[in-house]
């Protein structure tokens, strides 16, 4: 028999959108740093002796179209960080590309490891941030704060490290990984 501790329930269930209610539950945002890019690189290519950073990625129109893939849309390479994992004798062991995607309410930094032939080897999340005043601005997000005052401060609740609710979908992340894979295939593979 499992033992369940007493649950702590609020005195009243808080509706999703509180309008003009003072002393409402604080807005809790959730953020975690998992790995620095250097840690992720080391984890994905433990045998590499160095990671050679590439210059910022600039794509030709034709390359950008290929990278965008079937989903289309514009490809923003300004935040990509591309590195080649090299063995001590200079052999290319693969590539690590870091990027960030914006979900409905969150910013996810991630890194993908590729084999020399462009096959995806691994994905690591570097950091996860829920919006709390800067990175992401959507109408849906702002609507959450309609009527909120200083009585419901936005804060990170250190006591809560886990949230359970509607399952977070990672469609944006999947799309992002696909773009990076097409870039590695189209631009890096065979050029080393």
């Amino acid at each position, binding site marked *: 028999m499992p033992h369940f501790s007493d649950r702590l329930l609020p005195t009243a269930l808080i509706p999703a959108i509180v309008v003009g209610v003072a002393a409402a539950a604080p807005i809790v945002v959730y953020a975690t740093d998992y790995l620095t890019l250097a840690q992720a690189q080391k984890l994905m290519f433990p045998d590499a002796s160095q990671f050679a950073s590439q210059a910022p990625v600039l794509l030709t129109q034709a390359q950008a179209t290929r990278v965008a893939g079937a989903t289309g849309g514009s490809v923003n390479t300004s935040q990509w960080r591309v590195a080649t994992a090299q063995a001590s004798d200079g052999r290319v062991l693969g590539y690590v590309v870091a990027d960030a995607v914006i979900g409905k309410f969150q910013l996810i930094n991630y890194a993908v490891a590729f084999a020399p032939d462009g096959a995806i080897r691994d994905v690591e999340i570097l950091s996860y941030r829920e919006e709390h005043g800067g990175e992401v601005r959507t109408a849906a997000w702002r609507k959450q704060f309609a009527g909120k005052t200083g009585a419901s401060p936005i804060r990170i609740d250190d006591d*809560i490290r886990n949230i359970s609710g*509607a399952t977070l979908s990672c469609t944006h992340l999947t799309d992002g990984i696909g773009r990076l894979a097409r870039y590695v295939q189209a631009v890096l593979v065979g050029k080393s």
Partner: protein
Amino acid sequence: MSLLRRAKPLLGTLVEVSVECEGEGLARAAIDAAFGQIATIQRLMSFHDPESDLSRLNRAPAGVAVMVDPMVAEVLRFAARLARESEGAFDCSVGSTLVALEALPAPNSDRPVDRPAETTSGYCVKGSVVVKSQPCWIDLGGIAKGYAVDRAIEAIRQIVMAKRGSDDAQAVVNAGGDLRHFGPKPIAVGIRAPAASAPLTAKVKLANAALASSATAPGEGFSSHAGLLVDERSGTRLAAGLAASVMAPTCMVADALTKVVLVTRNPDHRCLSRHDARCVHAQFDAR
């Protein structure tokens, strides 16, 4: 004590594994084993992957014995049992309904015929052999995530407990809100309403137990396939804005029972006490 946390995109969501134990090497090995288990389960039970055991089963005609991985058999066995106990409120043969609603891609096989509402699951399992009793497409989206969390916790436990003096080791595996904890220190988990990006509706303590939440899309402005849940008894999709969180000894049980609560709109459904579970939060009105 070393505390390590890592996250990867798996099971269609973000899976976070956090381990606290004696020695960083041990924590890293435990995390790798946990992710390895989850990746294996994703490979076996994905509806989308034509190579998965589940897809092989979905392609098989009724009456043909299909050998599946023991883990797949275990999930199917529990799913069948819960379908019986809940009189069809939980049903993993919802594949054809979800395909009809365009929430899932059609497998490359005969489309199942409409079957009369009944309380069997459309297949039977013996050991690791599954036989479909009628054409049906099985989707484990309502249970496999919880099962993967359980297997990941088990993998961590085996690794850290093999080391002497690991009595104070702690771990949490959280697959997009379906999570399980083990260790001496309980954790606080916030429960968040589906439409909300921030306010927490409740906070629960979790001690060597699991918590899972399910919700239908909050309604306005959300993609129609996110949070799509159906009542297979009537073949209809559930209304928007429903949410349920269930605590149970295992995450598979918690995950599956959230569907029973949502479909029956009964947070005290007898299936919960039968499986030592309870509903800690439920919302049946769109807000």
